[in-house]
């Protein structure tokens, strides 16, 4: 049927969720379940050693047996840092090669550093990593990342955590039309309609975190996002009508009961 395929694996859900910013692991787990997602991103960080010995780990709640775990390189500002993080993630996840590459430029905007991103993508692909790469909405850079051999390209809708939505629909559409690998909008989604627009534009999926984790009711928002991604995909497949400047009646003009 209409499945998303990444690294030779089929996904029924086209929604990918981040696991940051939730109140606790229970809330994370509930939101993921409500969203119906099958792939989740995680960050790679130093372990908190010597504190509570019974302290639970995120992966005790978000099991790699249930979800595809997509380790990210968030917080990396150079290609070398990003590659090192991916290698650590591979060891942590017992040889899994699927990663989300992101190399940032500066902490204020969190805008991708495309030069370092391309460098890192080349190094990772050479080392057989399956790279899902976060980048700008520049169609040239997106195509370059595809040519390098990335598994999918993930242009931003707008800045990470901004909630502004997709600021350049034309670029996203251009990226999609020129791609032969999945295109997933990553970052910028604020509410359900943003995700729906991404899917109506023809994106293969949407990745989000803050819009759900920081909503007043994250579980309800997760469910809303699930529906919006499905609705957007269905609308794309159904084919929208052309926009017209003037009105066109939905009811027939003939057989009208008039005074004549």
């Amino acid at each position, binding site marked *: 049927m209409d499945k998303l395929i990444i690294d030779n694996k089929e996904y029924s859900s086209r929604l990918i969720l981040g696991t940051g910013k939730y109140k606790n692991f229970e809330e994370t787990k509930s939101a993921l379940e409500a969203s119906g997602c099958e792939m989740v991103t995680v*960050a790679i960080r*130093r*372990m908190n*050693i010597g504190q509570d010995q019974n302290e639970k780990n995120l992966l005790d709640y978000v099991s790699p047996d249930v979800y595809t775990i997509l380790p*990210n390189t968030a917080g990396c500002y150079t290609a070398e840092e990003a590659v*090192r993080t991916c290698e650590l993630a591979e060891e*942590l996840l017992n040889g899994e090669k699927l990663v989300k590459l992101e190399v940032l430029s500066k902490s204020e905007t969190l805008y991708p550093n495309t030069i370092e991103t391309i460098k890192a993508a080349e190094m990772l692909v050479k080392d057989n990593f399956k790279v899902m790469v976060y980048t700008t909405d520049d169609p040239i850079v997106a195509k370059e990342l595809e040519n390098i051999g990335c598994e999918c390209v993930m242009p931003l809708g707008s800045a990470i955590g901004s909630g502004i939505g997709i600021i350049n629909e034309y670029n996203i559409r251009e990226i999609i039309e020129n791609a032969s690998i999945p295109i997933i909008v990553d970052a910028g989604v604020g509410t359900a309609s943003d995700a729906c627009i991404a899917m109506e534009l023809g994106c293969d999926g949407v990745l989000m*975190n803050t819009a759900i984790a920081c909503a007043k009711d994250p579980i309800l928002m997760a469910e809303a996002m699930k529906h919006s991604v499905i609705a957007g995909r269905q609308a794309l497949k159904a084919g929208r009508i052309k926009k017209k400047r003037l009105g066109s009646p939905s009811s027939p003009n003939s057989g009208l009961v008039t005074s004549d």
Partner: protein
Amino acid sequence: MNILLNNKPETIFDGSTVKKLLKHKNIQNKYFAVEINQKIIPKSDHGTHLIKDGDKIEIITAIGGG
């Protein structure tokens, strides 16, 4: 001997292996990776890899992120 563990100074017994260090630190979490002086030490080597004085050891795990 003295090591740097996750950027904090530590003193451990001479002749410690990675496995002994993990046990000493009571790391029971099954999702982690170990790096010494920026070189990953595979899990299969934890029992034999000897820690040296001055080693910079990183133990990392997965946390919430987007």
